[in-house]
């Protein structure tokens, strides 16, 4: 859950209506709008919107821990895991933003 409202110093009158491919949101006078966790891209969009401010505490990023998984348990999981066939062209990002095609 993320809560947003229009900044008090944004100089905005009336309702604020936001429309984006990620979703829509309407901010009535001074009201706070809650965005569900099921719309993370809309949360990301509203978080950097110049007219809005986030009023809840955004969750802190989870720290990475090298020993988060017990070594014995990890070995047990590895032993019981099925063998996967690795494709020669696994899904991967592209820094140029080109759409992904799996030629295999």
């Amino acid at each position, binding site marked *: 859950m993320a809560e947003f409202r229009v900044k008090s110093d944004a100089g905005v009158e009336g309702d604020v209506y936001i429309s*984006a*491919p990620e979703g*829509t949101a309407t901010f009535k006078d001074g009201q706070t709008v809650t965005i569900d966790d099921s719309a993370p891209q809309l949360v990301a*969009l509203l978080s950097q919107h110049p*007219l809005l401010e986030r009023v809840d505490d955004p969750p802190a990023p989870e720290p990475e821990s090298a020993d988060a998984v017990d070594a014995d348990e990890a070995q047990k999981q590895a032993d019981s895991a099925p063998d996967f066939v690795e494709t020669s062209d696994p899904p991967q990002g592209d820094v140029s933003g080109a759409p992904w095609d799996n030629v295999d």
Partner: protein
Amino acid sequence: MAGLSGKTAYIGVAKQTAKGSAATVAKYVNPFTGGSAGPERVVDRLQETDSNLDPGSAYLVRGGAAGSPEFYVRPKSFPAYARAGLGVNTTSGAGPYVHTMTTATSSLPYMSFFRMLGATVYERLEDCLVNSISVRSEAGQALVCTLNFLGLKPTRSATEWASTPTLENEAPWFYHQGTVTIAGSTVTNVRSFEITLENNVTQQQTDDITLYDVVPGTRNLTFSFDMIFDSSTAFDEYKKFHYGTTSGTAQSTTLYTTDVTFSFTNGADIVQFAIPVAAYEEFPAEPDAGGDPVVSSVRGAAIRSASPITTWTVTNTVANAAGVNYG
């Protein structure tokens, strides 16, 4: 039958609710000042050896739709095109209304574009994404928008699309109505500008002549302007670009960034193009053997920051409750 006049033509725009759901009618239609739009039909020839010198048989590669219309930047319709290119629109106010367009985080809205030619050709170009949108002007001229879009397919109508609005006839913005701001200060020696947002859209084809999808790639915002080189404003920016500060004498080892805003006001109608963090790529100052005044043709690009890379704002009289006009 009489020939058709090329002067009778329009480009229209409307936002779709989703891919595959073409808009039934344009929200805004504008006269062309240049460019065009229409169906795509790619044809190629088979290439193989044989005993015949004639080229191989022709075949159809793919269909599609595309356009690069140019039109004047007018207050009522421009938010529809800008929103299509940037992705996000925020409308606020109770009249006049302020439409703030910012870049979307990951995707763009599917659009329908409508083209009429000679009151005879009526086509709707469906499932389109804006590949690039550019606005330019210069001293004494109106602001012109060039849109480039790519879509999946056209649909033809034998008659005018029902409920097509009339051509927008509001006055466009002119360059003399402008204010240029660099590093928070107004400068008065910029005589032309251009700002371009590229979405690098790719058309995808699979097992059909009709395309599968259009997908945006890496976004890039560039700008350019011609600045009369004077001993204050232009020379200061020149020094900051090369030497870091206005008093620097050694070449700077860091990239100079600043903010750049182009704003145009015609009564209550305002359009503004803001780049919160911009980096110059070229800031030349060249001699001229003919004695012409020195003019720097500056080029730069927006830099990623905590804010959207660019924000375009239009103030007009059009409400947009629940996205009724601009989506």
